[in-house]
C-alpha cells in the first residue's frame, strides 16, 4: 500500500508536522473569518498576514536547508531564487491591474508608460496568464540554479568559494534589477497590485486564502524534502557532504547529485517568493540584497540545519523575535540577531531542534540500556 509505505518511509514525526501545517491551513482562516472580532479565539487579519509572511520565510529556510544542511552547499544567495519567484508573481499581478493604473494604459504597466515605452517587452508576454506565471515561478529560479550549479559543481567549487560566488550572484542580480532599462520597474520594483485570480488582494478572504495556500505549500515542500532526504538519494547527499571524494570514488557523479538538490531547492525558494509577494504587496530589488540571504542562513542555523523541522522553527522564531524587537527596542535588533547567531554557532552547532533531538535520543539510549540491562539483552543502537 502506497500510504503505508509512505508512512514508514517518513516516520511519524514528519507526518505529524505535515498534518499540523494542513490543519493550520484549514483552521486559521476559519478563526479569522467566521468568528466575530469580539470572540477570544478570533485571529485578527494583521496576524494572518504576518504569519503568512513568516511561513514564506520558513519555506525559504527549508529550501536552504536541503542544500546546506544535507549536502553541505552553503548558499549565501538563496534570496535571489526567492526574489525571482516573487518577480514572476509580481509580473502577473502587474498585468492584472489592466487599465486601473494611473495612466490607464491598456497593456503597459505604469512604470513602462512613465519610461515612454511603446510596447510590452517580450519577456513580459504571457504573464497575464496565471498558469504561465506559476510555471515561471519555478522555471526561472530552477533554470538559474541549473546554469549556476552546472558550472560551479562541475568545476568542483566548494566551501567558502562557493558561498562567495552565490553571494556575488545575488548581488549582481540586485544591481541588474535596480536598472530601469531591465524592464522590472527598477528601484521601485512592482507594486500597487489590485487583484489576483479575479479577487481583490485587499479583502480579508483573499488574505486568509493566501495564508492557507502558504501553509499548504510549506506542508507539501516539507513532504517533498522528507521524501528526498529519507531516500537513498538523501543518504547520498549526506555522504557527499561528509566525504565527497569517497562518494566520487564509489562511482557517483557528485556534481549531478548536488545540481539536482540545488535546483529543487531553488524551485521551492521560488514558490515561497511567489506566495510572499501578494501578501506584502510589493517586490523590489531590495529582496536581492546579500544581507537577506545571510539572514536565511541565520534562521536555519538557529533552528537546526540538517533537520527539516529546524529551519521552519528557526524562521518562525527569529522573525517573531524581529517583529517584537523592532517594535519594542528597534535599535537593539541587529545586536540581538548577531548575538544569537554567535551563540548558536558556538554552543549549539546543530541548532535548537538539533539539540532537542540529541537530548531525546540520548534519553532513549539510556532507557534502552536500562531496559537491556534488566533483561540482559544486547543493546541495539537507534537508527
Amino acid at each position, binding site marked *: 500500500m502506497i500510504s503505508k509505505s509512505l508512512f514508514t518511509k517518513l516516520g511519524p514525526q514528519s507526518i505529524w508536522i505535515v498534518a499540523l501545517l494542513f490543519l493550520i491551513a484549514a483552521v486559521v482562516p476559519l478563526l479569522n473569518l467566521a468568528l466575530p472580532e469580539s470572540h477570544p479565539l478570533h485571529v485578527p487579519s494583521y496576524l494572518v498576514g504576518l504569519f503568512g509572511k513568516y511561513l514564506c520565510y520558513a519555506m525559504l529556510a527549508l529550501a536552504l536547508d536541503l542544500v546546506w544542511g544535507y549536502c553541505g552547499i552553503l548558499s549565501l544567495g538563496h534570496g535571489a531564487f526567492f526574489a525571482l519567484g516573487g518577480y514572476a508573481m509580481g509580473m502577473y499581478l502587474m498585468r492584472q491591474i489592466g487599465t486601473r493604473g494611473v495612466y490607464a494604459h491598456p497593456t503597459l504597466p505604469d512604470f513602462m508608460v512613465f519610461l515612454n515605452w511603446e510596447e510590452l517587452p517580450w519577456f513580459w508576454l504571457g504573464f497575464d496568464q496565471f498558469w504561465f506565471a506559476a510555471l515561471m515561478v519555478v522555471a526561472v529560479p530552477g533554470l538559474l540554479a541549473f546554469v549556476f550549479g552546472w558550472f560551479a559543481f562541475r568545476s568542483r567549487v566548494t566551501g567558502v568559494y562557493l558561498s562567495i560566488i552565490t553571494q556575488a550572484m545575488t548581488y549582481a542580480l540586485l544591481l541588474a534589477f535596480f536598472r530601469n532599462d531591465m524592464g522590472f520597474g527598477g528601484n521601485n520594483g512592482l507594486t500597487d497590485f489590485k487583484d489576483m485570480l479575479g479577487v481583490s488582494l485587499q479583502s480579508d478572504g483573499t488574505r486568509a486564502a493566501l495564508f492557507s495556500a502558504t501553509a499548504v505549500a510549506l506542508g507539501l515542500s516539507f513532504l517533498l524534502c522528507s521524501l*528526498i532526504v529519507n*531516500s*537513498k*538519494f538523501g*543518504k*547520498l547527499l*549526506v*555522504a557527499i557532504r*561528509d*566525504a565527497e*571524494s*569517497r*562518494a*566520487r*570514488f*564509489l*562511482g*557517483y*557523479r*557528485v556534481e*549531478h*547529485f548536488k545540481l*539536482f538538490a540545488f535546483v529543487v531547492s531553488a524551485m521551492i525558494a521560488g514558490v515561497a517568493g511567489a506566495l510572499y509577494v501578494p501578501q506584502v504587496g510589493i517586490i523590489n530589488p531590495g529582496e536581492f540584497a546579500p544581507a537577506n540571504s545571510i539572514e536565511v542562513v541565520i534562521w536555519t542555523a538557529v533552528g537546526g540545519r540538517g533537520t527539516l523541522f529546524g529551519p521552519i522553527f528557526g524562521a518562525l522564531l527569529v522573525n517573531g523575535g524581529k517583529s517584537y524587537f523592532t517594535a519594542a527596542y528597534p535599535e537593539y535588533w541587529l545586536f540581538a540577531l548577531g548575538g544569537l547567531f554567535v551563540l548558536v554557532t558556538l554552543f549549539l552547532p546543530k541548532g535548537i531542534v538539533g539539540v532537542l533531538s540529541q537530548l531525546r535520543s540520548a534519553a532513549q539510549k539510556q532507557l534502552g540500556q536500562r531496559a537491556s540491562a534488566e533483561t540482559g539483552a544486547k543493546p*541495539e*543502537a*537507534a*537508527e
Partner: protein
Amino acid sequence: MSPKEKQPLLYLNGVSVSFDGFKAINNLSLVVERGEMRAIIGPNGAGKTTMMDIITGKTRPDEGEVFFEGDTDLTKYDEADIACLGIGRKFQKPTVFENHSVYDNLALAFDEDRGILANLFHNETRSRRGRINEILDTVRLSHRKDFLASELSHGQKQWLEIGMLLAQDPKLLLVDEPVAGMTDAETVETANLLREISKNHSVIVVEHDMGFIRDLDVKVTCLAEGSVLSEGSLDHVASDEKVIESYLGR
C-alpha cells in the same frame, strides 16, 4: 579465451607526473595480471599514493600510458567513470561516511545504478540485504551493523572501507596502507581478509609493514623516487642491494 582476457588487467608504461617541477612519478611501468594480488612497498614520498591517484583518475599523468583490461585508456576518464569501470580504492586515511550507519555505508557502496532517479526511488530488496550481511561478516563488522561509522575504532573504519570496496565489487581493488594504526592482532586479521578477497578479485596493496607483506605472500614491487626499484618475491626484493640502500637499510 578471447584476446581481451589474455591482456593484463592493468598496464602502466612510462608514466611520469610532476608537481611544481618535482617528479613524483618518474617513468613508472607496472603490469598487474588478472587475479593477481600485488604488494607495493617503498619509502615515504616514493609516489605510491600518487600512482593510485593516476590509476583512479584523480591525477592526470604528464606522460605515459595507463591501460585497464587491455584497451581502456584510463587517462581519458574521471574518478566516477573509472570507479564504474571496475576500479575501487581505499584511501590512505580511512574515509567512510561518518554520519551513516555501518550498514548504510555498505548499502551506498553497493554495486548498482549510480543515477539520480534510481537512487530517489530505490527500494531495499531482500537479496541485497543478504549480500550486505555477507559482507558485514567478511569484514568482521556484523556486531556493529547499526552503529554510526563515527563510533568505530580506527581499525574497524579501515575494515569498513574495505567492506565498501567489496560491496562495490570492482575488478581491481587499490588498497592504500590498510594496516596503518592497527594493532598486531588486527594486522594479522587484515592479511587474512585481503587473502580471502584476492581469491576472486585483483588487488594492489600499498604497505610499509614488512610482517604484513610477508603474511600476504605475493609478488612485491618496491618503488622509490617515482619509479620501480625492484620487483619479484619478497625475499628477492628484500635482498636487492638498491632496496636495502634506499629503503630497508635506513
